[in-house]
């Protein structure tokens, strides 16, 4: 066991972990951050996506010790961001979910995309989100919700 420090959604957390534990286990089981979902454990489904120092990564493929000293952001931490709040409202407005299992991952990834490219459209948007699977198949509603939220991410807003 060793002690690592993670800043999770703005709060600094000290947590003891085994070297072979992935960030996904530590977030869900040791820190109670349950918006991060576990499904394939192969890097395929993307439901475990979090922002690590600002970049989306799949937390089932990232060791907790690799994240030592870094900043982790999940859907929980985005609720205090005004733009991300509007993005989440847009998901509701467009019915961009059925069971909702994939929603936190899509919120995290689309928040990242809109923050760097608020004009994104069409195939580019689909590509950016292609690492996340929605078993309920609400992709088109998700694209609409993200496109509708672009206005909140533009500088002049």
């Amino acid at each position: 066991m060793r002690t690592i420090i993670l800043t999770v959604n703005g709060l600094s957390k000290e947590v003891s972990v085994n070297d072979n534990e992935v960030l996904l286990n530590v977030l869900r089981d040791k820190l109670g951050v349950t918006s991060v979902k576990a499904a394939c454990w192969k890097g395929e489904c993307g439901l475990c996506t979090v922002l690590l120092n600002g970049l989306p990564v799949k937390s089932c493929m990232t060791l907790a010790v690799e994240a030592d000293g870094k900043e982790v952001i999940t859907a929980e931490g985005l609720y205090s961001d005004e733009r991300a709040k509007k993005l989440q409202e847009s998901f509701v407005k467009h019915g961009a979910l059925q069971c909702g299992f994939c929603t936190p991952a899509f919120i995290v990834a689309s928040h990242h995309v809109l923050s760097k490219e608020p004009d994104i459209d069409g195939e580019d948007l689909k590509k950016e989100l292609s690492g996340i699977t929605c078993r309920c198949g609400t992709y088109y509603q998700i694209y609409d919700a993200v496109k509708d939220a672009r206005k909140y991410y533009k500088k002049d807003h």
Partner: protein
Amino acid sequence: MSYNTPNISLPKFTYYKADNLTDALSLLKQYNGNARVLAGGIELFKQMRQRLIVPEHIIDIKGIEELRKIDVTDRGIEIGPAVTAVELQKSQIIRDKCPPLFKAAAFMGDRILQNSVTIGGNLTSGLPCTEGVPALMSMDSVLEVRSAERSRILPVSDLVLNIRKTTLNSDEIITKIIVPYNGGLSGGYLKLLNASEMAVANVAVALFSAKRKLRMAIGAVSVKPYYFDESTLGWKWNEPIEENIRVALNAIGSTIQPMAYNRVASAEYRGEIAKVLAARALKELFRGA
């Protein structure tokens, strides 16, 4: 812990974060045979979850600054193995001077994985479908490979032996990827995926106009990519492009031995698609020339 089953949990190991190459190489030597280098982890952790390999020591090289750089030198373009697929696509040097690699990087897993996937890990995975090997082969690239004792140069075309098997020794690290051209190179990269997003064929082409050199690498059709140059393609610089492409496709057809792999595609289909992509890549390459 509810995750203690194979395919989910990782076997036990000790993690080392190396901050310089000397440390990484001496750890690798100390635990030789029982240690693995960690870059993006995307292939390494997959193999460890399946218990295909169970190294007890994991040496993370992502914190080593010199392995994360892209430089233009008198040897050509030098790329650190820990550069990620996203960083390759953001680099103006790669965009301008290594177009096959620039385009190939966009296929190295999905956009989220591309924040983790490194070019060194992509090459060393030794998977037939990966993009790094054919893209770099088309530019005659070589690798600088080091162990604690020595350093050697290995052509990318000699790296992959078989599926998940490479010619690297267990105490060696790829420390640099060298593309031996600095400008004057145009090129392309095409890939066809089947409906479940598995690669049917990849084609990388590069043209060094000043030197009248044409290169092509065809990946995914077999365990390792096929390499062609102007002579094996039967290319004649004074013939019309259409005639050259016709001859080249014949040469490709009689050289490659496509395999049916993982139920992705039949051998015949693979062979046809390789030729279709090759023709398209050559047409695009010579459109402006």
